[in-house]
């Protein structure tokens, strides 16, 4: 198991929390993103995730490095699952430990925002009557980041 990884099996979130725990950690935040049944009134049957795996793992590690620079003393682990996921399955897990809780919350939320900006992972939603690749509409693609 790696600290920043793309996996194609069921995610066990506790493993990532364990990876960041240290005697100096007073707080651990663990975020899990799950497949939601309903999005904007449309019922999802399942999701399919694809990644550019080596670059995605590199970008997850970059996010971890950004966090350790921005919130000194924190430690981060992130995993994202690819393939077909059913309702309630975990797509992503983010674990952050920190001496104090404030940084653990802030850094964790920063990680999910950055994943949605820079990590080459794509989600396809499959409904009863169709399917679609989902692009983050807030961030128009530019030449570079």
């Amino acid at each position, binding site marked *: 198991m790696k600290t920043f990884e793309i996996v194609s099996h069921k995610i066990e979130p506790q493993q990532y929390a364990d990876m960041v725990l240290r005697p100096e950690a007073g707080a651990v935040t663990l975020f899990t*993103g799950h497949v939601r049944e309903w999005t904007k009134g449309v019922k999802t049957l399942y999701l399919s*995730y*694809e*990644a*550019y795996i*080596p*670059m*995605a793992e*590199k970008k997850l590690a970059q996010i971890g490095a950004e966090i350790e620079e921005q919130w000194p003393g924190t430690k981060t682990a992130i995993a*994202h699952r690819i393939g077909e996921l059913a309702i309630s399955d975990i*797509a*992503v897990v983010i674990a952050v430990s920190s001496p104090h809780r404030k940084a653990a919350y802030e850094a964790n939320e920063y990680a*999910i925002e950055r*994943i*949605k*900006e*820079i*990590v*080459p*992972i*794509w*989600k*396809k939603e499959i409904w009863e009557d169709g399917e679609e*690749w*989902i*692009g*983050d*509409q807030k*961030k*128009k*693609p*530019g*030449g*570079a*980041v």
Partner: protein
Amino acid sequence: MITVHYFAGLKELTGVAQEQADLSGRTVEELWQWVSEKYPGIEAGAARVAVNEEYALPEDRLETGDVAAFIPPVSGG
């Protein structure tokens, strides 16, 4: 030769996950011209380009053995 990767919706549009292209010495901007001529449905600017797993600028130059990838808007999480 360089390697070109396509992902998600772009892969469905090109019908291939990856291919070789004779673009050594060309820029990322020229890669865009090449791909939009080969696959008329692809609009320049509809994706970011990564070279060797880092986001690249239009003026970046490709070298033999480079791995380029078209990165459509990401939607992980």
